[in-house]
């Protein structure tokens, strides 16, 4: 855990290096990390206020759901499908060695629903959506579009940030369901090419020991991934400075940091889930 925190802190300080090369490394490192978290705190406070106070930007929220959800769908489905195939091929080989081939459907279904599906979706979305949000808001920032919005008496946190963060929270669980479906289907497909088994039997075997409480934590987990991706990439975008170079930096930082935070959140949430649900 401390290693993960160190990696995240290094990444955060790395995002600020260009402005502070004159400072000595340890001083720069700590100032940058505290500054980043301080600014993030202020950002989240403004975001919460924007989410709670009317008026609500439903039209923009639906547009963002389409942008983040529908347009990520093919990539997420493909990644889910690839995971299912790889998982099936690798697991089959291992289970055959231990004489536990009969457990293959359950292993595929459990590992996809509980871990592979959510984390693959989280990382794919942090790559596609994180870069998109970071670059879009960054570009709006350096071309004064965000200032123009504020000058028009429209809160950019409400219109730009809250809608994107909420869309990420809403879309991640739905995208994960698609990824899971594709993963399980291609897992069966890969399995049935080696040893034919009906889809119905595969699903019955796979879901036989799965309880309703096995579905809830991964869904909650992906909503937290969405929150993480939305906040980190909007934050990186809206604090962009330094022209077009800054936009590129924001896009990269959005992907790097949101991926890192998704992994960190996964570690923490899995521990919490195991503590609560056993």
């Amino acid at each position: 855990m401390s290693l993960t925190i160190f990696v995240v802190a290094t990444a955060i300080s790395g995002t600020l290096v260009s402005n502070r090369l004159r400072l000595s490394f340890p001083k720069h490192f700590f100032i940058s990390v505290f500054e980043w978290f301080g600014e993030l705190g202020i950002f989240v406070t403004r975001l919460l206020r924007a989410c709670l106070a009317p008026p609500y930007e439903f039209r923009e929220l639906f547009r963002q759901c389409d942008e983040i959800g529908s347009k990520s769908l093919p990539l997420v489905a493909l990644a889910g499908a690839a995971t299912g195939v790889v998982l099936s091929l690798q697991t089959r080989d291992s289970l055959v060695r231990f004489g536990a081939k009969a457990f293959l459907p359950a292993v595929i279904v459990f590992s996809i629903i509980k871990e592979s599906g959510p984390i693959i979706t989280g990382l794919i979305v942090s790559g596609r959506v994180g870069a998109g949000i970071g670059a879009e808001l960054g570009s709006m920032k350096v071309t004064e579009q965000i200032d123009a919005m504020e000058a028009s008496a429209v809160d950019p946190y409400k219109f730009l940030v809250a809608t994107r963060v909420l869309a990420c929270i809403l879309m991640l669980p739905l995208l994960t369901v698609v990824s899971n479906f594709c993963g399980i289907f291609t897992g069966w497909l890969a399995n049935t090419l080696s040893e034919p088994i009906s889809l119905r039997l595969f699903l019955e075997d796979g879901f036989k020991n799965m309880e309703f409480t096995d579905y809830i934590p991964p869904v909650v987990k992906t909503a937290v991934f969405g929150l993480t991706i939305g906040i980190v990439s909007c934050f990186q975008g809206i604090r962009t400075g330094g022209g077009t170079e800054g936009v590129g930096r924001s896009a990269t930082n959005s992907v790097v940091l949101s991926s890192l935070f998704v992994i960190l959140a996964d570690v923490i949430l899995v521990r919490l889930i195991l503590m609560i649900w056993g």
Partner: protein
Amino acid sequence: MKENGGDFLIRITDLQKAFGEQKVLKGISFEVKRGETVAVLGRSGGGKSVLLKLIIGLQAPDAGSIQVAGKEITKLDENQLNEVRKRVGFLFQQAALYDSLSVEDNVAFPLNRHTPMSNEERSNRVHELLADVGMDRDLRKMPSEISGGMQKRVGLARALALDPEILLFDEPTAGLDPITAAEIGDLIVKLKRKRKMSAVVVTHDVHGANAYSDRMVLLHEGNIAAEGSFDDLQGSQDKFVKQFFSYGSR
């Protein structure tokens, strides 16, 4: 200064702003009367654009007072500040049109949020605003499909959407060819006559400013170096003012 109908719509007193060690504004004071157009001139990086952002509350001053339409904006909360902002239009240096919206939607953006207009009323208003700036034939185009001069016209239409009492222009003619710059200048004069608004125009263009402003304020090293009409400033014996006007006249 009264809330409505008073003499001054903008009153700036001892305004100071610094970025780190660099003091951009060192205590400037000036007023803009109702219906008056004031041109703010000065060298690049002299704090002119910062001054406009301070007036509309996009940045906070380090010290001093900014009164806009009778409100001390440094003491307003976000909602109160937004009420003042609805009375002020801002044309940004690069127009700052929203990339993802068409010309029509850019102009409709403030109307959608701050007026209870029906779709038809809003559409008519957008057409009227775009016709005022000669852009009513390019409604469906995206900002990336129109020239810099056209973008400024659309930005101006958007700034006028809520029928503001005050207009702030940040370098309205910068980066434009002389003909387009003159057209934008003429547009400002036309709008000034038609709508009787107060305006602050930040510019480098001395002669353009002479055409549309009633008074000029020349900033130098964070202070006001000179203030008055074009003739007052052109006849000034101050070294910097003479230099600025002689280069500006070339």
